[in-house]
């Protein structure tokens, strides 16, 4: 079902954990729906120096978090913002159709984390249209 890349990132996830005193934290998803993703950022000079994640969710959600943190580390905030779920899927060498929403979760978590950083810095959060993940109502 999953590509080798997905399985690799699921079995050996990169950047699991928390960052103490993170500069930005984004949490998306909902335990009720079976998925919560939390991304922590360490930012220096508008560049993401480090990122970590914690995820409650399926294999694809874990792999997407792992890959997403890999992709954004070292990137400017602007570049990181533009990393879409498509990029995550590509880097993972594909996801089954029913698993696409797991990668969307990763994109959303990055956006949340960056906006959290912006708000902490006194900047306006960038407006995002949340993609309707799967009709799972937030409580």
């Amino acid at each position: 079902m999953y590509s080798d890349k997905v399985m690799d990132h699921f079995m050996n996830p990169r950047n699991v954990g928390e960052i103490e005193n993170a500069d930005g934290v984004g949490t998306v998803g909902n335990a009720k729906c079976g998925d919560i993703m939390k991304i922590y950022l360490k930012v220096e000079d508008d560049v993401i120096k480090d990122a970590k994640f914690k995820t409650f969710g399926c294999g694809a959600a874990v792999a997407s978090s792992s890959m997403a943190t890999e992709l954004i580390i070292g990137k400017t905030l602007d570049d990181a913002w533009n990393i879409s779920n498509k990029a995550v899927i590509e880097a993972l060498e594909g996801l089954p159709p029913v698993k696409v929403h797991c990668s969307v979760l990763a994109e959303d978590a990055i956006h949340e984390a960056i906006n959290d950083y912006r708000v902490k810095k006194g900047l306006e959060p960038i407006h995002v249209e949340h993609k309707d993940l799967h009709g799972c109502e937030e409580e």
Partner: protein
Amino acid sequence: MKRLVYMDHAATTPTSTEVLNEMLPYFTEKFGNPSSVYSIGRETKSAIEKAREQVAKVLNADTNEIFFTGGGSEADNWALKGVAMANAGKGKHIITTSIEHHAILHVCEYLEKNGYKVTYLPVDKDGLISIDELKNAVTDETILVSVMFANNEIGTIQNIAEIGKLCREKKVYFHTDAVQAVGNVPIDVKEMNIDLLSLSAHKFYGPKGVGALYIRKGVKIQQLIHGGGQEKSRRAGTENVPGIIGLGKAIEIACLDIQGHAERLIKLRNKLIEGLIEKIPHTRLNGHFEKRLPGNVNVCFEFIEGESLLLLLDEMGICASSGSACSSGSLDPSHVLLAIGLSHEIAHGSLRLSLGEATTDEDIDYILDVLPKIVERLRNMSPLYEE
């Protein structure tokens, strides 16, 4: 080779070698169409009749009350649609439970769309329906009660004899989906007042794609599959001869020593349940502790999600299943787990380990060694878990 510990016998079982050997001649040599006049057709015909006897014997039914189908789902569809359509004149009300298999629930939804009224009885925290609630639900319009014998997810076994007795008193037909029960729990359709019963071979070491419906003599039921005169003109289609032979042999073997089989599994099962609860904090057992399928273990581990758990177990060679269904595109976890009162969050962390013939004491030790570490690992990754 990687160690393989198959703990998903409730999903399906391997066809046993003994059963397969019984089937083999019917593919290539004894391949005649049972409807034929000539000898190689008559030979398959009598082999089918022998299988019918094997099934009838185990259920304490008559041979002419057993009808072979293409599986458990077909048997369930036939029972419900067939009885509903044939008895619409009497009434259009059906009673079932909220924890049935989809092969019952989705048929009920279909019937609701076609003018029938369906009552879904709730279950208590152990998964049992209340006889009083059932009694109150029966009206003059009620034509059928369908309550599963044993639940496929949490293993709870209903008080079938009591339900049967009530239905007989109230003069409504009683169907039970016994797909999980056959081979694990003794069944007596006469004593239990069962009017219709579904079963499926691949759950008791027979082949996939063949099942049976027991229809008590006199029950008014329509056909589901129309056509040729097979199965006394009640289920059309060239008979799946090897499959039927396999079903017969498998049910015979499964019920030879059902008591011994159950005792062995219950011992292993209880060791597994107790070990998991002891070793893994924030674990709860789902389903009734005693009225439970011998091979069923169903637990929830808080803070983690089922699919991840299954993937890591698979990496360790352990085959299991979960009531978390996010992966399948539907986002609700198992309707059974919700029906016994679990919250969505907790239900997503459910794990079903179902034991069977092949399960050994070493397998249980292995799981008790491996599983706590896997749960720990996922909890460490979970944003919900605080040590």
